[in-house]
């Protein structure tokens, strides 16, 4: 698009002339001119400006009244004054009004020191108040959820929080109640604010009205350190600030990476850091001796690992060794393990338990970026797992695109959170045609089976040329990085080696344990029992750890330096925000020590280890820590599409006309969430039934229901859905995904 295609207007703000695209709000135009216009309610990420707080009043020559700079678009020839006597009078008036009922309890307010109201009062406010009547008082604080406290006296009714709930997350739980001076923020019928993204309202609040219950009264802003990092709890890779005081993470804040998270965080990413301090964390290494697992220093761990690797490689060959990684590891750690195994003589490297090994290289020619969702006209979400469960913040981007006019189709059974904004369901066989017909189609695959099929679908739809393409969600947070580093072996092969006795040494990395997460967990357990050497590396005890000979305590993503690669292939930087417990050595140090026993010179320093990673795979080539920086770019063009990718065999519908259980891991699951008490209320025990099925079975909405399925038994409260496919029964299931026949009984 050439410059002449964009209509522009030229205006003058405080004497500075500038040219901006037509339709630019005056607030943004002023910012471009280096002029600050004070704002409270204006927040472009929440949708069109609403002009509620009136803080941004400015004087425009030729207009009799002051105008709100957020709702007023820049006009050609406009002469705007933001600090004239008239404008200042308006700004002072509004601040005086806002402060009438706002308690001046800044010394004991958590927002104090990082409060826009404080800052703007300092800069624009009247030095005095003429109000000497009683201030409005309310009961406070109100826990609108276990995560969020509401102080209605401090609330200035900017409606940022309700707009987030209603327009961005669309969970429609926060509302304004009553009217006029009695307006208050509330939830419906005092129910807690449940939702994947509720914590964002704390950050959006321009005053201390919505505060985090975990951070209340913890620290003053001038006695904390905010350290930039990225969240490694899912493959989205949202950028974060970790607030640190007294050596501990006190809270997590978003750090807007426009191409990744747009400044949003899910509640898992925001609150689950409590797991760092959980009581059952491994705080020292353990090696099994005559009297069971006994504490072992790092050097002993390294030596044991090296000895056992060499032993099995020499005696039983490379097929006897396998590393199964959950994807929670940094690229540097994963690469060190891979090099270690290779140095010993070789072994299998596994990064995913389902759908065979996913060939990310086959998807690469069709891969879209998260930000490509913005311009999409058609979005197809394939896979039974809810998008928001697999990659929370990506869901917000899809919702935003749908609000902008994109059509959303679900290639699954439905019944999830996107149903009410979706245009309907689409059969898998029709996806390619629908994508081909669209201008900028996006296919999002939420789970391995759908990911495995996505390349063939994208090829059939002709998506190689773009715009648009495939956004495939790995299961593990850093699965993309691990795959690039050679973790490409099929879990099923390793399992069969375990069952026939070939497998002798199994290294299980991470808290996402194959015994509970992989299909056929009981077979994995049997295989484990036959292994002579089991090494488990995790933060917390896992089922595998029961069989382990060596337990290598892990460090959390908030405790290590290194890189992780998100679902797009964007490599971002982790930073050691806090120190690991005293007895926990960095994995890289242990692995480097182990390498020495094998005659391998690894790098214990993350920055030097990254140099080896950068050379190891094309995905990282050319990257340096400087290039990654704080807002990591997505480098590299799409590779040329080669021959048609093979479509996976269609799995036969084992349903047989009966009810089909669909159990998937919810967002609020996993080792970190399980150790964050405050998040417990977010777990839903909903069992979603198609309305007609429920009526046939005589199950009413809200009734207690028991589902018996291949994975076990699930009980919960029935929710009846008009959009869930008939026959499907959907529920949250933390173990390996459940997909098969089931029986459903309502308990009277």
């Amino acid at each position, binding site marked *: 698009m050439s410059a002449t295609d964009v209509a522009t207007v030229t205006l003058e703000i405080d004497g500075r002339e500038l040219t901006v695209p037509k339709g630019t709000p005056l607030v943004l135009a002023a910012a471009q001119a280096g002029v600050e216009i004070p704002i409270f309610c204006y927040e472009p990420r929440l949708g069109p400006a609403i002009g509620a707080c*009136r803080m941004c009043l400015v004087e425009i020559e030729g207009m009799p009244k002051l105008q709100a700079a957020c709702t007023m678009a820049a006009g050609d020839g406009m002469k705007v004054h933001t600090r004239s006597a008239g404008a200042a009078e308006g700004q002072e008036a509004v601040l005086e009004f806002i402060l009438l009922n706002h308690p001046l309890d800044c010394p004991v307010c958590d927002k104090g020191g990082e409060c826009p109201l404080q800052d703007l009062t300092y800069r624009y406010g009247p030095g005095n108040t003429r109000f000497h009547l009683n201030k409005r008082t309310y009961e406070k604080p109100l826990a609108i959820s276990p995560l969020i406290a509401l102080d209605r006296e401090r609330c200035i009714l900017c409606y940022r929080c309700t707009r987030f709930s209603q327009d961005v997350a669309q969970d429609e739980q926060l509302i304004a109640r009553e009217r006029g001076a009695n307006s208050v923020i509330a939830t419906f019928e005092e129910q807690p604010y449940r939702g994947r993204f509720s914590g964002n309202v704390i950050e959006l609040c321009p005053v201390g009205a919505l505060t985090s219950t975990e951070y209340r009264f913890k620290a003053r802003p001038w006695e904390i350190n905010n350290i930039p990092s990225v969240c490694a709890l899912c493959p989205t890779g949202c950028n974060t600030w970790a607030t640190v005081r007294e050596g501990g993470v006190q809270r997590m804040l978003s750090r807007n990476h426009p191409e990744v998270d747009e400044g949003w965080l899910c509640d898992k990413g925001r609150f689950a850091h409590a797991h760092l301090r959980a009581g059952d964390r491994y705080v020292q290494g353990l090696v099994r001796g005559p009297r069971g697992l006994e504490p072992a220093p790092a050097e002993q761990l390294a030596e044991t690992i090296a000895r056992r690797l060499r032993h099995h490689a020499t005696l039983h060959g490379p097929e006897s060794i396998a590393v199964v990684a959950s994807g929670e590891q940094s690229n540097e750690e994963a690469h060190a393990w891979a090099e270690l195994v290779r140095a010993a003589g070789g072994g299998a490297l596994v990064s995913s338990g389902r759908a065979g090994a996913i060939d990310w290289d086959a998807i690469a020619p069709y891969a879209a970026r998260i930000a490509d969702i913005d311009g999409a006209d058609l979005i197809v979400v394939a896979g039974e797992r809810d998008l928001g469960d697999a990659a929370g913040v990506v869901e917000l981007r899809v919702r935003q695109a749908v609000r902008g006019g994109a059509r959303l189709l679900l290639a699954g059974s439905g019944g999830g959170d996107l149903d009410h904004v979706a245009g309907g369901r689409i059969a898998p066989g029709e996806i390619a045609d629908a994508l081909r017909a669209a201008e900028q189609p996006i296919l999002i695959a939420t789970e391995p089976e759908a990911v495995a099929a996505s390349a063939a679908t994208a090829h059939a739809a002709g998506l190689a040329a773009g715009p648009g393409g495939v956004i495939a969600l790995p299961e593990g947070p850093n699965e993309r990085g691990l795959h690039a580093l050679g973790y490409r072996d099929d879990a099923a092969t390793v399992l069969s080696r375990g069952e026939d006795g070939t497998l002798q040494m199994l290294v299980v990395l991470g808290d996402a344990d194959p015994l509970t997460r992989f299909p056929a967990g009981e077979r994995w357990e049997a295989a484990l029992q036959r292994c002579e050497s089991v090494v488990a590396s995790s933060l917390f005890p896992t089922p595998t750890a029961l069989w382990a000979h060596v337990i290598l305590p892990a460090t959390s993503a908030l405790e290590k330096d290194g890189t992780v690669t998100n679902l797009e292939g964007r490599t971002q930087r982790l930073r050691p925000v806090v120190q690991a417990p005293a007895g926990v050595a960095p994995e890289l140090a242990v692995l480097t020590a182990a390498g020495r026993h094998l005659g391998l010179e690894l790098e214990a320093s993350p920055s030097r280890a990254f140099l080896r990673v950068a050379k190891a795979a094309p995905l990282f080539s050319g990257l340096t820590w400087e290039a990654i920086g704080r807002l990591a770019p997505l480098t590299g063009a799409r590779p040329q599409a080669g021959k048609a990718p093979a479509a996976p065999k269609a799995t036969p519908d084992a349903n047989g006309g009966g009810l089909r259980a669909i159990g998937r891991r919810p967002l609020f699951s996993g080792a970190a969430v399980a150790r964050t008490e405050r998040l417990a209320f977010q777990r839903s025990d909903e069992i979603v039934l198609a309305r007609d099925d429920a009526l046939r079975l005589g199950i009413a909405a809200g009734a207690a229901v028991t589902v018996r399925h291949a994975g076990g038994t699930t009980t919960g409260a029935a929710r009846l859905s008009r959009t869930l496919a008939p026959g499907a029964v959907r529920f949250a299931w933390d173990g390996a995904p459940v997909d098969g026949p089931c029986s459903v009984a309502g308990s009277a």
Partner: protein
Amino acid sequence: MPEWTPRIEANVLLDFDGELRDIDAYEAYGGYAQLHRAQAGMDAESLIAELGGSGLRGRGGAGFPTGRKASFLAPGSERYLVVNADESEPGSCKDRELLLRTPHALLEGILIVMNVLKLTRAYIYIRGEYLTESEVLEAAIAEARARDYVGAPSGPDGYVPEITVHRGAGAYICGEETALLSSLNGFRGQPSAKPPFPAVSGAFERPTLLNNVETIATIPAIMRRGAEEYKALGTEQSGGTHVMSVSGHVLRPGNYELAMSETMGHLIVELAGGVPDGRGLKAVIPGGASSPILGPEALDLLCAPEALAAAGTMAGSAGVMVIDDATCIVQLALRTAEFYTYESCGKCTPCREGTRWITDTLRRIEDGIAAHAEIDLVLEICDNVEGKCLCPLGDACAMPVRSMIKRFRAEFEAHVDLGSCPLHDSSSLSSLYPQPRSLLPLVTASSA
């Protein structure tokens, strides 16, 4: 229903004798003849020209020329007509009269506009408290439906007009067009910034023509008489007649239809009988509670919007309130401010906070516990509210209060000096504002 019988001065809009609720009576009187004319092939240009030529100005309060408003309606495959029947301005009850007595005039007007502009559907957003009125309206629509005026193909192109009555839930602010549309669309009834204007994105985000009940109900009368004849009844800038509600201290309160060229004096003294009980006229609020107050000189002004605007007030929604000389203006100001404080929607800061502050300060003045400086404080708060809000509600509070202080300042000062309300024994609003206990003379057993 004799209590609503209008005093008809100019037989244009209320061009009949007695009740015309019944469709047979309305048709016998010539009703729906103009609809047939419109259906026979009237195009948008000629309707807009007719409305423009009649000098008809919107009767909802802003007085915007109706023909020009119709010409702004954006093209689109789905377009709506929304009739604003959320009549809530204190002092105004003209639309209620029309809804009860001549619902078919409104329906005919709606159907004319819909047929000519080919609008998808009409919504009548009626004030929630108007229960009987909505029942009458629904019954009239059922009658019109039985005659195939509604819900059946009309005209050669098979166009089917539909009308839906939507009852509000009791918010004054929903009379403001963007708040009305927000409420109609299923959201909280709060105003929003313009643009987008309703003519581009209104009901269900489609182009929407939004008019007041009286405006639409006048259209058949204009077509019957012809634009020129209608216009000649009024002034150069404001054509025709209008219905004015007179309340307060007059002998015969009620709704009166009269020509725009008549004076307020004619309305108040001759039609409504003037101030009773030998009292003097102290003030006139000419256009509903939000219009700035006038003194007795109001009697010499024309009723037309431009004449009232020239006098520093506004015709608003034609709710004329007459105030006698026994009335306490501080109480009147307080009552006015209380209303707008109660009805402020809470969306924008100056209105939400300012109206309450004005009310609380006025109450202190009325109670006799305020300092002199607080009178000027009220004026300053009014300045900080007016022109700084998202919608006109804040102005609607600030303008009348300011005008009352400016015109009757001595009375406010007297409250402060006296430490109580000097007119408390005579003012008809006093029952709302009992004096603080400590200021009442003490009556003890020994003194009795």
